[in-house]
C-alpha cells in the first residue's frame, strides 16, 4: 500500500459497464513525510474520499478485489482515508 493525496476527481460518462457507480479520483503519491513523490494517477474510490484527503491505496490484482464487484478492471484502488501518520523520531 502507498500513501497519496486526492487532488481531483475524474468524471467519465462512457466507461466499461462494470464501472457504473465507481468514483474515480486523481491521486498524487506521497512519501511517509507526506511530500509529493512521482506522477499523479487515477484510482477507484471505495471509501468516499474527496479532494484534499490523504488516503492509502493499493495497486495490482488487489486493486480490483477492493471494489464491490471484484471482476473489474482497476490498477489502483483507494482502501482508506488516513487520519494521521505517526513517525518515529529518527535517532
Amino acid at each position: 500500500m502507498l500513501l497519496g493525496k486526492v487532488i481531483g476527481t475524474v468524471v467519465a460518462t462512457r466507461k466499461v459497464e462494470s464501472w457504473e457507480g465507481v468514483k474515480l479520483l486523481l491521486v498524487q503519491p506521497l512519501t511517509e513525510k507526506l511530500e509529493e513523490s512521482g506522477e499523479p494517477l487515477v484510482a477507484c474510490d471505495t471509501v468516499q474520499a474527496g479532494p484534499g484527503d490523504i488516503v492509502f491505496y493499493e495497486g495490482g490484482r488487489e486493486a480490483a478485489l477492493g471494489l464491490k464487484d471484484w471482476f473489474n478492471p482497476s490498477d489502483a484502488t483507494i482502501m482508506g482515508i488516513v487520519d494521521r501518520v505517526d513517525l518515529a523520531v529518527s535517532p
Partner: protein
Amino acid sequence: MTLARIIGTVVSTAKLPVYEGHKILVAQPVDPSGAPKGKTVLALDTVQAGEGDVVLVLQEGNSARLIVGDSMAPMRCVVVAVVDEVETTEESGRSLWQIRPT
C-alpha cells in the same frame, strides 16, 4: 520478502471493513547492513511489530490473503516476521552483523 525497518504507523478510521482490526505500519526498506534503501511502503501488521523493529515485509497478494484468512481480501503488503538477526558472509564485506540492538 524484503528487510525493512518500521518507522511509523498510519491511523485510519474510514477504510474498507476488511481492514478493521489490522494495524497499518510504515516500513522503510533496508539493505542487509540496516541502511535505508528505496521508498517506504505501508504494510499490515500480523506479528505485533512496532516502531524501530526490523521486519520481513511480504509483497504478494495470495500469501497476504492466506495469512489474514480471507481469500478475497484486497491486501498485498503484510509484515510477516520480526527479524532478530541478519548474518551475512564475509565475502560480501559484512560479517556477523546484528541488525537489532540488544
